[in-house]
């Protein structure tokens, strides 16, 4: 039993943390978050040069990390600084490309790692945005080509992407795990249209529409109809990433609130002297420590070959993070009082991010139900 980070990971966390504190100040972040691009090419490049993107991928895929704890260390730091750059899409799309594994795919992963290109993952759909599997987008064979038709919802950083990894159905019904396929679609493909928009917690996303998009046969990633296990694994990595990001954001939010309670005077004394407020702060600490345990277990489980244990740990973590993140966000605003309601205060943006993390890759209710289902029936192998 050992809960210490390895020397390498500690150094990575230190150098990333230092970069973000010095270069990615809150003011800088706010400018980027509200920008038309939704991210900063300059910081993305710099973070790539620091090796931060490489840490998200294994040696075999051209990186030097890629395990659950590598993801957790990076995203916890990103959460502390409220980074909006496209790390999550890179994890999701990058893993799917790496798993597809052809030389062209690995070359693209390399360009992701070097920060030269961004690929987004488009999976969720407008008809059933709360489901993990509901895919209506269809790809049909037409001679040497695939023809893609359908819609994708809230695709993070879509406008910054040069290409998309798209899930589409090559057979079966919308809810089936079987019959799902993945395609790599260039952003400028004919028949692909996009409506971009800003997000409430900063950065941008888009709705994608595919109208008879013709793709070359080599656009297919992996085997037709057999993409679900790869998607589930990529989503698992995304869950670890989001949970760790939430943990970092919760730590910072709690610290900001503690500082405020120490400093803000009312009725002739610091707010922190009032027991009604003290006990609420303690509640946040308890929930954050429990969430930290959940993230550690999920990170350890990510590379577990036992799908049942792995997926249970991931859903437990996302459920826990959903509960704790929303509690921390809402309580932090309340404990700040009026000032917590202002755009000017950094805290309010952490609160928004924490709430929005519960809207990504399944909320607390979704993962509680999924955990219950997983305890009843075996996960897909």
């Amino acid at each position, binding site marked *: *039993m*050992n*809960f*210490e*980070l*390895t020397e390498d990971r500690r150094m990575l966390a230190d150098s990333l943390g230092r970069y973000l504190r010095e270069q990615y100040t809150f003011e800088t972040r706010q400018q980027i978050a509200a920008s038309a691009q939704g991210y900063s090419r300059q910081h993305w490049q710099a973070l790539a040069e620091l090796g931060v993107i490489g840490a998200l991928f294994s040696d075999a895929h051209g990186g030097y990390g890629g395990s659950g*704890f590598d993801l957790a260390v990076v995203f916890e730091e990103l959460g502390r600084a409220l980074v909006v750059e496209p790390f999550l899409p890179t994890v999701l799309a990058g893993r799917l490309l790496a798993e597809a594994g052809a030389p062209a795919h690995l070359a693209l992963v390399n360009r992701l790692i070097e920060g030269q290109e961004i690929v987004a993952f488009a999976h969720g759909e407008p008809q059933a945005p709360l489901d993990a599997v509901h895919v209506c987008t269809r790809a049909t064979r037409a001679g040497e080509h695939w023809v893609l038709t359908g819609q994708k919802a809230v695709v993070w950083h879509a406008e910054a992407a040069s290409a998309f990894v798209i899930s589409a159905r090559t057979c079966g019904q919308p809810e089936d795990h079987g019959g799902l396929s993945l395609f790599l679609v260039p952003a400028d493909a004919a028949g692909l249209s996009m409506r971009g928009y800003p997000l409430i917690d900063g950065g941008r996303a888009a709705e994608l529409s595919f109208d008879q998009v013709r793709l070359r046969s080599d656009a297919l990633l992996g085997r037709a109809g057999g993409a679900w296990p790869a998607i589930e694994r990529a989503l698992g990595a995304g869950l670890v990433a989001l949970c760790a990001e939430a943990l970092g954001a919760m730590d910072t939010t709690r610290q900001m609130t*503690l500082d405020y*309670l*120490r400093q803000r005077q009312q009725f002739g004394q*610091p707010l*922190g*002297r009032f*027991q009604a407020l*003290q*006990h609420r*702060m*303690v*509640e946040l*600490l*308890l929930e954050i*420590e*429990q*969430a*930290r*345990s*959940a993230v*550690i*277990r999920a*990170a*350890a489980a990510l590379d577990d070959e036992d799908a049942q244990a792995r997926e249970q740990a991931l859903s*437990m973590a996302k*459920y*826990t993070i959903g509960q704790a993140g929303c509690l921390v966000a809402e309580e932090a605003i309340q404990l700040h009082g009026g000032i917590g309601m202002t755009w000017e205060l950094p805290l309010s943006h952490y609160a928004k991010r924490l709430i929005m993390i519960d809207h990504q890759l399944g909320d607390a209710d979704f993962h*509680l*139900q999924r*955990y*219950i289902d997983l*305890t009843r029936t075996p996960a897909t192998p």
Partner: protein
Amino acid sequence: MDLNFTPEETQFRDQVRAFLAAELPATLSDKVAKGKHLSKQDLQTWHDILNARGWLASHWPVEYGGTGWNPIERFIFENECALANAPRTIPFGVNMLGPVLIRYGTEAQKRHWLPRILDGSDWWCQGYSEPGAGSDLAALQCRAVRDGDHYVVNGQKTWTTLGQYANMIFCLVRTDPTAKKQSGISFLLIDMNSPGVEVRPIITLDGAHEVNEVFFTDVRVPAENLVGEENQGWTYAKYLLTYERTNIAGTGYSMVAFERLRKYAGKALKNGRPLDQDPLFSARMARVAIDLENMKLTNLRVIAAVAGGGAPGMESSILKICGTRIRQEITSLMRRAMGPYAQPFIADALQSDAQAEPVGPAEAAPVSVQYFNNRKLSIYGGSNEIQRNIIAKMTLGL
């Protein structure tokens, strides 16, 4: 990061399991599993079995007859005992007084009292709380006045757990009423058979006789029974309160209780299907199961930190609040699972040598009693509100 036990720790765990399989009498584990009250003899039997194996004093150094275990070994042992439905070791002598004597007692006191704790010659109880001193323990008023070679004690203690079985009590007494409230307190060992000591039962809301009031009227206590220095008792009391903390979360008890709940919810029917298929009940079960999984890891994180040389401060309070909340929720779910059969109160069915026929499902008999009894978890050992005060003081620094 490595969430698994080392090969040595796994080996130790297997050793503990083998010991429990061989030495824990089925009659005892059966009573614990069924939630029956244990008799004094039951508790003494388990005490003696542990002592014979040399595994009783898990907090003591080897030189005093302890195990010399590190916090991880201690945790493994306590957890495995809970999972095997072993009776709890009665903590007052072994886990509470023992470490205080080892740290602050004289050589003569250690030589006299420690072996008697191990071999069961003395059954200790704890004299801390008073009617006017609960959470505000330092407000205690039980007086001890020096008179030659003796102290003369007058006053009252309360919530004295299993005091009806005890022949000795360690007490916090006020020796200097003029000093600031924490500074005038001493730590005194009192023979319960002395003239002037009276024990009266307190029956708790579950109908059990677990706790007592103890009255002292002109009780003469030899001065050599003072531990440490006069008026320094508060220091020793705090040491004792923060000492036994590796198992404060009681994760093993929660794991056993949850397993019992899971089994029962799998066969009890609601609206024609098993209770664990009911959306609302299964959601409540899943929530507490996840909290418990998180708690297990939080507990191990704290133990690993302590084993690495850290001192548990705020962490014990975190473990206590989270652990007791989970244990209470599980007993609450078990009570709900019984539906109307939570109502019958067949007190005889819970006695150690019960003959009474239970009413309803066999699992129902102890459920409400345990639910009401477990309300104590968030009150004793520093209420959960006091634990929050402790954490707040440490984190806010105000």
